[in-house]
């Protein structure tokens, strides 16, 4: 026998073994189970033309902020201010649109309202990050402070400027402004056009009764045809596109770039990363700004979609974002996580949050029972993955 070396002790794995050991596998299986269960329980309604649109709307909402939260968690920090940042950004845009730019600088266009708001939220993200890295305090406590601070600021600003904590009845900016339209309008119309085109082929020549039965309507809905036999849904919400863009960029950066290596290194062992010249503090501050960006996108899509905002927007969203990141396989202790897993997690949680609309007999509060359960299961699963990678320490 030839001399044995340490390297021989590592077993060659087949692609199937590798697949099963991927960190996203748990999130993937749960997602598939939920999709199948929801399709059956809702009698297919959850995935008819409108069901799909509405599900993807909430999945994208959760997904956008969960991606930010996950990237930050991989670098070893938390952001509890995400929900309040959503409220703050929504307030800022809505007040500018209704009452004009600050300091009497005139009317605000959607673009100006967005850019000025983004400048503010990125600055706040920078401040939060700088406080965390300079003070060495736990980000948990620093961002908890900003959770209260920003929510309070939002409410006070509403009352001072607007007298009420709600702005509604703004003009529908997406009609006029391309910019409002890419945030609050519809995207991927071709998908629903193709769906309708295919639906028409399916029902060509069918004689419909004068009064459509419930079964008829269900069948047509699954083909993107409404009761008047016209095209039913025309596109996804624009936030779906932003979710895809942010997920693609986050995936690319984390897995393929130098910055991604720095993010993982920072969260795994900050001192080791620093000793090797990784600019740990800049990475962290940058990621706090990224979560602020994600919260701002969430708010902008909401404001330009509904033309309203109020002081409670985004409430509890920071906790959903963190929960989804964990369900997607992100380690609470940092250094490990997968963007694909977070996407699976957002799909799972989004579908379950919406399930009550498709299965009216169930109590909506079951959603939180479910979320609590998979969160706990995910934490245990993630811990096992971490132990396997670190050799059980």
């Amino acid at each position, binding site marked *: 026998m030839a001399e044995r*070396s*340490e*390297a021989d002790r*590592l077993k060659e794995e087949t692609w199937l073994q590798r697949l099963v050991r991927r960190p996203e596998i748990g999130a993937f299986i749960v997602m598939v189970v939920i999709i199948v269960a929801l399709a059956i329980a809702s009698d297919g309604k959850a995935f008819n033309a409108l069901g799909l649109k509405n599900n993807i709307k909430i999945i994208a909402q959760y997904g956008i902020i969960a991606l930010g939260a996950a990237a930050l968690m991989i670098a070893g920090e938390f952001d509890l201010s995400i929900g309040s940042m959503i409220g703050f950004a929504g307030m800022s845009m809505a007040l500018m649109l209704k009452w004009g730019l600050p300091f009497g600088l005139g009317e605000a266009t959607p673009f100006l309202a967005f850019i000025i708001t983004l400048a503010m939220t990125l600055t706040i993200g920078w401040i939060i990050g700088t406080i965390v890295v300079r003070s060495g305090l736990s980000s948990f406590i620093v961002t908890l402070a900003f959770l209260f601070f920003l929510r309070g600021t939002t409410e006070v600003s509403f009352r001072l400027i607007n007298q009420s904590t709600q702005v509604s009845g703004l003009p529908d900016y997406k009609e006029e402004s391309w910019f409002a339209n890419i945030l609050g309008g519809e995207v991927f119309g071709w998908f629903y056009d193709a769906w309708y085109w295919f639906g028409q082929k399916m029902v060509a020549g069918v004689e419909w009764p004068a009064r459509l039965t419930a079964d008829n309507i269900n069948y047509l809905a699954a083909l993107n045809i409404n009761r008047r036999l016209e095209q039913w849904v025309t596109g996804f919400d624009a936030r779906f596109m932003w979710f895809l863009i942010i997920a693609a960029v986050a995936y690319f950066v984390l897995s*393929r*770039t*130098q*910055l*991604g*290596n*720095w993010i*993982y*290194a920072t969260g*795994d*062992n900050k*001192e*080791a*990363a*620093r*000793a*090797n*010249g*990784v600019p740990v503090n800049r990475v962290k501050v940058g990621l706090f700004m990224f979560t602020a960006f994600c919260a701002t996108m969430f708010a902008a899509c909401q404001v330009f979609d509904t033309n309203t905002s109020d002081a409670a927007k985004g409430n509890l969203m920071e906790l959903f974002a963190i929960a989804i990141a964990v369900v997607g396989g992100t*380690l609470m202790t940092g*250094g*490990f996580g997968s963007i694909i897993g977070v996407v699976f997690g957002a799909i799972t949680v989004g579908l379950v949050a919406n399930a009550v609309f498709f299965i009216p007999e169930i109590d909506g509060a079951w959603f939180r029972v479910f979320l609590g359960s998979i969160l706990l299961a995910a934490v245990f699963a993630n811990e096992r993955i*971490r132990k396997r*990678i*670190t*050799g059980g*320490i």
Partner: protein
Amino acid sequence: MAEPYLRVENLTKQFGPFTALGGVDLEVYPGEVHALLGDNGAGKSTLIKTLAGVHQPTSGQIYIEGKPVSFRSPRDASAAGIGTVYQDLALNQLMSVTRNFFMGRELKGPLGTLRMDEMNQIAHDEMLKIGIDFSDPTQAVGTMSGGQRQTLAIARAIHFGAKVLILDEPTSALGQKQQMGVLKTIKRVRARGDIAIIFITHNEIHSRLVGDRFTFLALGKVIGAGTSDQIGNDEMRRLMAGGAEMGDLEQELAGI
């Protein structure tokens, strides 16, 4: 006699009122292993952290190839050719061998993308040169043995241009067989002839096996120094014990 690559003159380091180093002199030559010995708390780690730019000296001077230098950060020291392998190795367990090897100094393509294949190849080749054939550089460091991690950290320091390789107690947390592996690695690096090695240990046998030159620290001061010919085994044992005579120690112990 060749010129020392690194020379330290009368280096002191205070932490507030506490004198961690009280005037240390040191010379390290390329192609030699300089063993730095001393008890826990003697100041070994403080000395090398000062050389590595982590601490700034309170007074004294560091020379590289005869020229005075001062390091404001680990980056400065690393640019001057000082590669440090710390006790904790500065490795990230959850990351792959390659990602650790290039941490902070990644090879970039357009848009900051990683040139992963090239990096895998280099990491593999560099580790092979000093002794381990690591078949899968995408494996996480957490699954490697302690000796393999040492080799990775050493190969990394050399690849990024270390002319002085500082090893802080590389054998202390390892089993017998792996300790020998690390000593072999040290010998292989020494055989290249162009790298000066500072080997910190408090194991007398290990230092004997690979050391060309010795410096003994106790309570922040040098209490003895010399080449391996100049320092005999008894003298070595006396200095290891912080300068106390073995006979005295035996008496002391017997008296309890």
